[in-house]
């Protein structure tokens, strides 16, 4: 902030210097955002992580190999056998297209990076972009300082790191950038009223729609904000320009994305935007009429319009409600409904409920994921109210809604993280601003006069017109002095809660007054020198604490790729690379067209790494199909064989952690298989697998449990390892130790037994009499294939 009194040349030089410094800081922030996410590559290797990223990777490979047109028309017959999946029409293509074009560009520059490398580093690159977008957004709200602080915070917020470490090649990595950037462009349009930015906003929204299903958050949040502005009397032509083009262009563009298509106008998620669109036009019209009519005429016209308008509106509304109510889910998709009604999924859709990231988060996870930001956010909200602008009201709305969503689903913590960073950035920046200003203000005096004057100057400069009426000045000074550092630093939560309330109340008061008197906005807040110095120190400590936590989270908590596991034992690092061992085995030693059945968690990995056809995968679009696999896993051997054979399955893959203590194995997921299977096939009943309501696999387990396929495939010959069959995950000896398989045969087990692959034995020929027992293997297989063709109900 250059003083107006300063010489022009000096000011511009300072400005230029500030600009260069800002660019430099932004570059550093980008580097930080990129490099903090490389722990996974350094500690492990440059590899795609987890489950969904493997699917995205496979799609990207297809795109780079076959081109964009084949990609749109891609019908994938290697998954959901025998149904298949229309990939081009069911996938959000943003991420794939982004990585694909990066790869294409690099290859045209003769930089021969593999598709995998590009995919691995897409997420870190976009984190840097997201940090810059945050800077832009916060700058629009509260100025450069807040912007830089928020960008720095976002660059290393653990919640976002968890989804965007190198290798975590998932939609969210790109989508968060798109989300923030869309918000920035919206605010920018709102602040400038420029149609150029409005168009950019629509394009950015289009990119967001391409990238992630979370775009519905944007298309609901922005209308909410528009509505808020209208209700609070902040309607302006800028608001109209910011919103109307977004709805029109945005909806048109969104419907171009195959996966959205007509949903952009037909589902209830988009309904709010249209409603607000109409309201906005009505309001704009009213303002227009108000402008050209005399007040008297306006009143008459108003009553006329209002009566007719209400009648029409209610009629339209009634029709709409009738239409919406006629559909069973009220026009909402299952996932959206589970957001509005957190108990919905667990009641009706066990598949959504079975995914751990769809569970509500616990309090520690807030501390883990946004750390000290949780304490800074309230202060940021207060700062946003001083003064309240269109932009800051938007940010407040953003944080309020995202806090709710993050409370419903742990995965949506990701949406909260940028909001928390923006708020905390504002809070920190404002605090630093206040403290450094007061130090700067008092430092010259310190040398001239005695330090005792400080208190007086304080009181003198401090009087805000708003508060003098309510409190005595001394009290207030104290309150603010306490308030600031406490907000930043406090780990004691008791104090914080009290203060938070105070702050909010004051904030509201302030906001009201300030909005009434915008001319008063420039107020000088001077605190005692010592207090400021200590507060700055505490703020820095707080920041350091945050940085340490983030680096720890990035290095330890979120860097594991989950397909390679490591454990530290007394003789050093031990690597468990069993998943890839199994997938590599499948890839090289089975026929290309063999079908592999496993629980849906491993579907994406199997298709991507082993290139084998799977029955179900992580895109859980067909509940019945998953239930079929669940039923097979929970059935005894013979019925299970029948089910698998009818699905043309050749190999069955199970994940078993009992030998090495890998706890997220199939036995631990088994109850979900039973539940999902039982939801469609009622002969599978959960109580049959539980002894007195307890899930156990030891000698007290139920016979149904001990005879089901999952148990048998997991524990087949397990007793031969240590003679007792001690399961390290469940911590017990297994119930049934010695048994044989009649319809399956073990064909591969990985080094640590974590993945076991079984082959379906081919059915024996029907024996007519006893004479023909042995037959030529060739003819047997022929008969089998014929039989399969006939018997297979899916073809």
């Amino acid at each position, binding site marked *: 902030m250059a003083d107006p009194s300063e010489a022009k040349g000096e000011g511009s030089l300072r400005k230029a210097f500030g600009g260069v410094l800002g660019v430099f800081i932004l570059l550093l922030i980008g580097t930080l955002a990129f490099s903090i996410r490389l722990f996974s590559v350094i500690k492990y290797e440059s590899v795609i992580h987890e489950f969904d990223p493997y699917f995205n990777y496979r799609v990207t490979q297809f795109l780079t190999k076959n081109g964009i047109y084949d990609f749109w028309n891609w019908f994938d017959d290697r998954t959901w056998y025998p149904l298949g999946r229309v990939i081009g029409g069911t996938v959000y293509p943003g991420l794939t297209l982004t990585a694909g074009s990066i790869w294409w560009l690099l290859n045209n520059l*003769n930089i021969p990076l593999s598709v995998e490398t590009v995919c691995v580093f897409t997420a870190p690159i976009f984190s840097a972009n997201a940090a810059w977008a945050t800077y832009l957004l916060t700058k629009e709200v509260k100025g450069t300082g807040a912007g830089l602080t928020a960008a720095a915070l976002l660059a290393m917020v653990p919640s976002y790191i968890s989804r965007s470490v190198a290798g975590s090649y998932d939609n969210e990595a790109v989508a968060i950038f798109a989300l923030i950037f869309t918000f920035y462009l919206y605010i920018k349009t709102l602040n400038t009223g420029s149609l150029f930015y409005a168009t950019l906003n629509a394009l950015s929204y289009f990119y967001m729609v391409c990238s992630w299903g979370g775009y519905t958050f944007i298309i609901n949040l922005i209308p909410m904000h528009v509505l808020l502005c209208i209700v609070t009397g902040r309607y302006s032509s800028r608001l109209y320009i910011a919103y109307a083009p977004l709805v029109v262009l945005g909806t048109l563009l969104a419907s171009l994305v195959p996966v959205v298509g007509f949903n952009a106008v037909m589902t209830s998620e988009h309904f709010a935007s249209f409603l607000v669109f109409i309201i906005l036009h009505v309001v704009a019209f009213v303002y227009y009429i108000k402008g050209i009519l005399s007040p008297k005429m306006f009143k008459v016209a108003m009553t006329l319009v209002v009566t007719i308008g209400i009648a029409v509106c209610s009629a339209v509304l009634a029709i709409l409600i009738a239409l919406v109510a006629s559909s069973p889910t009220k026009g909402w998709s299952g996932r959206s409904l589970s957001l509005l009604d957190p108990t919905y999924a667990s009641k009706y859709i066990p598949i959504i409920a079975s995914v751990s990231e769809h569970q509500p988060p616990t309090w520690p996870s807030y501390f883990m994921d946004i750390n000290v930001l949780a304490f800074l956010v309230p202060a940021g909200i207060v700062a946003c109210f001083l003064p309240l602008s269109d932009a800051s009201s938007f940010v407040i709305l953003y944080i309020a809604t995202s806090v709710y969503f993050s409370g419903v689903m742990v995965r949506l913590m990701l949406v909260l993280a940028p909001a928390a960073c923006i708020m905390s950035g504002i809070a920190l920046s404002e605090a630093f601003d206040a403290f450094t200003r007061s130090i700067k203000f008092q430092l010259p005096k310190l040398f001239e006069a005695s330090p005792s004057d400080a208190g007086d100057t304080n009181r003198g400069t401090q009087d805000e017109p708003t508060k003098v009426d309510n409190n005595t000045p001394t009290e207030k000074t104290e309150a603010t002095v306490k308030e600031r550092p406490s907000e930043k630093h406090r780990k004691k939560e008791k104090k914080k809660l009290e203060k938070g309330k105070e702050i909010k109340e004051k904030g509201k008061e302030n906001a009201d007054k300030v909005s009434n008197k915008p001319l008063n906005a420039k107020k000088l807040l001077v605190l005692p020198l010592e207090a400021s110095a200590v507060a700055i120190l505490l703020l820095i400590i707080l920041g350091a604490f945050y940085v340490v936590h983030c680096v720890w989270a990035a290095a330890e908590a979120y860097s594991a790729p989950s397909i390679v596991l490591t454990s530290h034992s007394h003789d050093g690092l*031990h690597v468990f*690379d069993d998943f890839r061992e199994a997938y590599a*085995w499948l890839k090289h*030693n089975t026929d290309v067209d063999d079908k592999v059945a496993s629980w849906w968690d491993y579907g994406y990995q199997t298709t991507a790494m082993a290139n084998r056809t799977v029955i179900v995968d992580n895109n859980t679009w067909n509940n019945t199909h998953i239930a079929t696999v669940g039923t097979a896993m929970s059935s005894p051997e013979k019925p299970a064989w029948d089910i698998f054979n009818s699905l043309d399955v050749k190999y069955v893959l199970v994940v078993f952690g009992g*030998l090495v203590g890998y706890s997220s194995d199939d036995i631990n997921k088994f109850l979900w298989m039973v539940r999902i299977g039982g939801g469609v096939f009622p002969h599978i009943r959960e109580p049959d697998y539980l002894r007195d309501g307890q899930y156990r696999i030891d000698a007290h387990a139920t016979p149904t449990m001990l005879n089901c396929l999952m148990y048998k495939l997991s524990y087949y010959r397990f007793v031969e*390892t240590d003679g007792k069959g001690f399961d390290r995950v469940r911590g017990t000896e297994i119930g049934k130790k010695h048994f044989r398989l009649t319809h399956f045969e*073990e064909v591969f087990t990985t080094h640590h037994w974590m993945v076991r692959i079984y082959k379906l034995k081919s059915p024996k020929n029907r024996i007519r009499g006893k004479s023909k027992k042995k037959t030529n293997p060739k003819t047997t297989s022929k008969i089998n294939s014929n039989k399969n063709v006939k018997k297979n109900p899916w073809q």
Partner: protein
Amino acid sequence: MGRRTRSAAAMAIVPLLLLSFFHLLQFVSSTQEIRVLSAEKRIDLTSPIARVFLTLKVENYGAPEVPEILIAFSPTESEHLAILKASTVEGKRKKKTYVPLSVSPVSSPDAPNGAQLYSVTLRSPLQSGETTTVEALYVLTHSLEPFPTEISQSEPQLVYYRDSATILSPYTIVEQTVYIKTPSSKVESYTKVEPTARSGSETRYGPYHDRLPYSFSPVIVHFENNNPFAVVEELVREIEISHWGNLQIRDHYRLKHAGARHKGVFSRTIAALGYFYWVYDTYAKHPCRLDYQFRQSLSASFKTLLAMLPPRVHSVYYRDDIGNISSSHLRINSQKSELEIEPRYPLFGGWKATFTIGYGLPLQDFLFESSDGRRYLNFSFGCPLIETVVDDLTVKVILPEGSRNPTAAVPFPVNQHLEMTYSYLDVVGRTTLVLQKRNVVPEHNYPFQVYYDFNPIFMLAEPLMLVSSVFLFFVAYIAYVHIDLSIRRPLKTNS
């Protein structure tokens, strides 16, 4: 098929030489009067590769001098023939030295039953009445045939070896013996052509006397060979030269266990099968706590492979298309580097695996400047994995950008052609010399040279390109800042 390509390649390389041979042959074969006084053939079958040492004592009893002698192979043998080396013994007893002789295939329409002849050019033509001793070593791949073709995890692997009890030769052999050495004394059966004797791991056929040219008496030896039949179906070696001081090697392997196919169940616990051998397992030296596995049974599966890399190797990686393979050990000393690798899973008969080994080497160890100013790369041909057959080997020598006129000097016939490779920021592309050879055995690990012309100024091309692009970017930015392209400016001045 293989033979044909090889001879075609040979013709491509040394057409003149061959032509002269043909001329000589016509002259020789009609008039040759040679007999083999004594012949000894030692067949070493202890590894998956059959190595045959042939010692011939040749006498010229005719009048004209004989510049070369012929060695005959049956069609199957010549198909599997990987390499044939011949040498002659110079000096007596104590000062014995072996002098290598040049060998070349000979088209022989008059040989019976499609026998393929190779001619060995003697150091000096054999005068009338003189004798000389020629030693030949040849290596046959894929000549051990597993039988039974499918075995279960715990069964030993038995193989057939087919050959002739008498040595196939275009000459009369006065006295001959064939020895077949098997890895152990476990020989299931063998054809008896009296006199035949067997002691320990060696089976002897002969001595036979005065056999006519091209006499053949087929024999089969059926014996246990539990060596891992590691066959690299395809190996692509990329050798990239950077004049900035690095030689980058990337070897892409497609490995197969070519022994008897694995059948039936697979089990990690061998104890249950009650049949296991304690074999030397290098991993016993690195025991890990959670490893419950018992040692692999002897049934010809293999867990580890050993690759011999040049000394001073650095940044070694071992991975496949789904990521790093975490099981490898590298031992480096000043003489050589040993990389012990373990495929992701133990390979049983018929199982396959693919992987890539890559490493960097200091350039000064391999790149030299010849006296005429050309540079040449001196590198080992063949596969670094020990005791491994490579069915199809492709060596791509990627020369630096701007190098010209590459020529290869390989001590045996190979197919070669040129192609272009584009690497980091290349504009012109890098000239790549591609050498292809089928049926490669460890005996092919022999240095070869690639000569090329290179102007060091090309080294600066890419840095200069980068610098100038950054410079242009800044210039463009400065220009953009200083030039106002807006259409509204006249309006502004007006208002």
